[in-house]
């Protein structure tokens, strides 16, 4: 029989059926996290472990002429010293990790420099010693001879004729013809449609601007940390804080030239990642030090190392030109994006290009992106990589267009909005999107109608993120007392254990506290791509639900055995099997607990496992509204109100969905107002600490109203779309547009720090 009750319903009117999904239970890992018991990267120890530390380049760009570690090795208590020579040289090989493709060769050279140090802080050597103090002393005894080379930090400087070259054999890809000279431009990408000249010719008004952003860091509070053991037989164990234990395993195997089966990675609790822990830094060094010393090795980065040597996102220079009719209809858009990649190719300019115009239906456009290497730390993914940067430029220009035409900024977005059936600028045709509903949600807020006072301004901006699916494995194991364990391979960064347990409980029809979620090590569950790209609740959640459905099928089979009926005559509802066989009308329902208790007699343990490659993640649209007040004498900006609406598909645990939105807003506000990498003339970061790299503190922000718009994604069992990344896309422009309306001046260079604002106010004659 086709039993609709077997499967949770989906779509707009499904909520009546839901008992668990959409509620706000306490997270299953909560008690450990409020009592200090949860074990993060630095909280784990192995017997006999050594302390590992890294020697980092003091130069932004230098040839490593020689490394003499004799004195360091001779120091009592030092057990190993390694350099780039202790690692195999890899060929180019691209690996799709979940947020962006990585070249494994570059990753290996970023882990430890070979012939050249490419940025200040680039790892050059590492030591393992019996104490932190001895390790520090050993670092000081390593004598590295450098030939200092000219360096380049800013993206346009790196593109300029005659700029110092980081990789002398790098020729720009993506051009019509291979260039005859190498350059720092790794790649040019282009997305275009329609007749651009005709589009601009048809425009009544044109707005244009140059926009810049600075490199910013993910700013997770937990520094990178790992403990690694390389046993005498070559088998390795790694404990580390990352966004993906399988990612760590794959990359370590590649960088060290090992077989994957020799490496087991156990995920620690992760103290924030935001994309920055989708790559490896310490793990291969710790493994190599363990191999050389014969001891487990523990390594923890200092905050300064985190800033100097781990991935920020790109600084960028952008040009935007928009043409529109008097009624606001866009006729053409020309967008040029130049993104810093750091020391190796791979800036998120591709995603920045694809998302730049994703909210708009424009007949003619051209988006050109440049991926540019610079003598700065290799960028890593940062929450919707690339999208906040291009959105800052496009949404600033859209606000100028709204001002120029005297059109309400929400109405201007509505007029040009993508809908279901619109072919997106980046290619696919949108389906089941909730963009105009999200615009309307912001228009409906009380915030939108609140009067503004003197020196205050209100800005709005929109943002887009694809969200991804990808490979995941999940298992649902029924315990003999009828409770369940859900096992996945995705580290829980922001409450995903709760959503996994909730989806399993909903599907099985049991209470959520009867389901305990586990994040397993790489030997205990099948492969899963990392936690990133806003994929976990969607893709891993889908694997959990399918596993639970397999369990239900098995539970029905067991009930049929117990009742001696055909399995087609068993229905699963509310956590019990119901007998539909008219001949056995007296049979009472069998609860999951009752079936589990008899499992030994009906065929053994009841489990379900699913591995899948999920497709059809619904894209996310975010619409933000921000009020600011400017102190005209000091240039200080206060964020007064902030509302953020987003199409989330279906919120599994609404509190953690709101939390994702609020957190994304806070990071975006920091990016807009105060966060930036500041480099001195030698290419050294001047503010490598939380004192002068100024992330927002509690008193900097108001309450952040998160508005959940639910337009279900039919590809997910409960309608979920990814939610974690879209919220960081609009804030840069939302804040800048609010400042524009408060001051009357367009500020196109982030961050909007007080000195810059006072300077433009002075120039304006205010």
């Amino acid at each position, binding site marked *: 029989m086709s039993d609709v009750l077997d499967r949770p319903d989906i779509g707009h009117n499904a909520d009546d059926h839901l008992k668990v999904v959409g509620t706000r239970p306490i997270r299953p890992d909560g008690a450990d996290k409020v009592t200090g018991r949860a074990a993060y990267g630095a909280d784990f120890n192995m017997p006999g472990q050594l302390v590992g530390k890294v020697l980092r380049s003091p130069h932004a760009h230098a040839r490593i002429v020689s490394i003499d570690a004799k004195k360091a090795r001779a120091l009592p208590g030092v057990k190993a010293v390694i350099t780039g020579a202790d690692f195999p040289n890899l060929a180019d090989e691209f690996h799709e990790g979940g947020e962006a493709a990585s070249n494994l060769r570059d990753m290996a050279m970023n882990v430890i420099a070979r012939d050249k140090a490419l940025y200040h802080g680039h790892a050059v050597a590492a030591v393992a010693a019996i104490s932190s*103090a*001895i390790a520090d002393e050993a670092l000081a005894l390593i004598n590295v001879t450098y030939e200092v080379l000219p360096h380049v930090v800013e993206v346009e400087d790196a593109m300029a004729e005659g700029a110092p070259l980081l990789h002398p054999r790098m020729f720009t890809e993506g051009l019509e013809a291979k260039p005859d000279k190498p350059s720092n431009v790794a790649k040019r990408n282009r997305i275009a449609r329609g007749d651009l000249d005709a589009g601009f010719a048809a425009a009544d008004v044109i707005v244009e601007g140059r926009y810049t952003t600075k490199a910013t860091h993910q700013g997770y509070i937990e520094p990178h940390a790992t403990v690694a053991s390389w046993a005498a037989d070559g088998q390795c164990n790694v404990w580390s804080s990352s966004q993906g234990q399988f990612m760590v395993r794959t990359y370590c195997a590649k960088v060290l030239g090992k077989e994957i089966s020799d490496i087991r990675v156990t995920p620690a609790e992760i103290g924030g990642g935001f994309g920055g822990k989708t790559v490896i830094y310490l793990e291969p060094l710790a493994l190599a030090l363990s191999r050389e010393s014969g001891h487990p090795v523990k390594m923890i980065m200092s905050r300064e190392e985190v800033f100097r040597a781990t991935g920020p996102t790109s600084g960028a220079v952008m040009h935007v030109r928009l043409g529109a009719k008097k009624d606001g209809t866009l006729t053409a858009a020309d967008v040029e994006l130049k993104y810093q990649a750091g020391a190796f190719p791979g800036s998120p300019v591709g995603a920045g290009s694809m998302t730049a115009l994703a909210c708009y239906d424009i007949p003619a456009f051209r988006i050109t992106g440049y991926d540019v290497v610079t003598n700065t730390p290799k960028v890593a993914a940062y929450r919707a990589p690339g999208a906040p940067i291009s959105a800052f430029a496009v949404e600033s220009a859209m606000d100028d267009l709204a001002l120029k035409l005297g059109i309400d900024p929400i109405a201007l977005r509505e007029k040009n909005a993508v809908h279901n059936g619109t072919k997106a600028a980046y290619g696919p045709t949108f389906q089941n999107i909730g963009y105009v509903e999200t615009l309307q949600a912001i228009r409906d807020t009380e915030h939108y109608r609140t009067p503004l006072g003197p020196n205050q301004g209100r800005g709005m901006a929109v943002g887009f993120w694809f969200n991804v699916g990808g490979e995941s494995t999940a298992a649902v194991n029924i315990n003999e007392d009828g409770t369940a364990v859900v096992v996945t391979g995705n580290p829980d960064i922001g409450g995903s254990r709760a959503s996994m347990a909730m989806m399993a409980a909903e599907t099985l029809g049991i209470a959520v506290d009867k389901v305990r979620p586990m994040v397993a090590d790489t030997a205990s569950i099948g492969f899963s791509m990392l936690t990133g790209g806003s994929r976990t609740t969607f893709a891993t959640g889908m694997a959990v639900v399918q596993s639970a459905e397999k369990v239900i099928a098995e539970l029905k089979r067991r009930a049929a055995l117990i009742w001696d009926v055909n399995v087609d005559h068993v229905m699963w509802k509310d956590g019990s099997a119901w007998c539909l066989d008219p001949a056995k009308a007296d049979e009472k329902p069998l609860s999951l607990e009752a079936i589990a208790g008899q499992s030994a007699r009906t065929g053994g343990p009841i489990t379900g496992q699913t591995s899948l490659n999920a497709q059809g993640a619904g894209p996310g649209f975010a619409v933000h509204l921000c009020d600011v007040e400017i102190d005209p*004498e*000091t240039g200080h900006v206060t964020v007064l109100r902030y509302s953020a609406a987003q199409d989330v598909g279906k919120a599994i645990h609404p509190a953690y969905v709101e939390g994702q939105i609020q957190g994304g807003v806070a990071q975006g506000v920091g990016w807009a107002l*105060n966060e930036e990498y500041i480099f001195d003339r030698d290419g050294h970061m001047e503010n490598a600490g939380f004192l*002068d790299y100024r992330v927002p*503190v509690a008193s900097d922000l108001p309450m952040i109203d998160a508005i959940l718009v639910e337009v279900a994604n039919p590809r997910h069992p409960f309608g979920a779309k990814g939610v974690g990344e879209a919220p960081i896309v609009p804030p840069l422009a939302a804040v800048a547009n609010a400042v524009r309306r408060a001051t009357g001046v367009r500020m196109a260079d982030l961050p909007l720090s*007080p000195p810059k604002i*006072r*300077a433009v106010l002075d120039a304006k004659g205010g």
Partner: protein
Amino acid sequence: MSQLDYLAPVTPEEAVRALGAAGARPMAGGTDLLVQLRAGRTRPDVIVDLKRIAGAIGVRQEAGGFVIGAATSGAVLGEHEALVKAWPGVIEAANLIGSTQVQGRATLAGNLCNASPAADSVPAMIAARATCVVVGPGGRREVPVEAICTAPGKTSLSPGEFVLEIKLPPRPARASDAYLRLIPRTEMDIAVAGAAVNLVLDAQGVITEAHVGLGAVAPTALLVPEAGQALVGSKLDEAALARLDAAARAACRPISDKRGTAEYRTKIAGVLARRAAAIAYKRAGGAA
């Protein structure tokens, strides 16, 4: 390898002896020293913790004024009602140093002797005409607060000397002070500029005495007599405020760095001086 030692003397004399050793550094709250130690910017052989010296933590009233022990944290100062009433500007400056956590440790004496040009409490102490009791091998001397810092990170203290106490003078009626600073965020930053104003009014609200201290606009915190004179004889009218702003700006000799440009710092010093003056005037009972 560093042979760092930790000593916690209980009398000033013991502390002087301990500080006589080569490489000895006094520690009050430790909120600057331990950061420098970790960053390798200082490598002392001995840390002499002043917190266990009798009287080092606490405030006593003496001859109408206040004597503040060198190891007294900002949190303790903020809880001393009489002190807050008499010197609200000095205490608000002390309480702006760092976070709540830092307030549990950081001290006026430490803030002074760390000799940062941007120290929040120093302009306020200078404007308050505070003095320091310095003890050392040569005995005890009392000097104005502004005599301590000579350059960024440098003090006039001789080897073995340390600040034992800070003294705030008695307050006449109709007197008050205020301190303001500008930081990019709302908390946790180092001042881009800071201004303290200390005023005494007569019964009619005319300013009879005014002292202005500026921070983060020169190699050391400044006492700006011209800025004080700009206010004396006025009821803080617009003209007086304009004179104050101009005098404050004229005294600035800032650098441009990651925290702000010289031009911005100068402008802000004038803005903050005006605003601090208005607050101090109101606190002193003047009709704003």
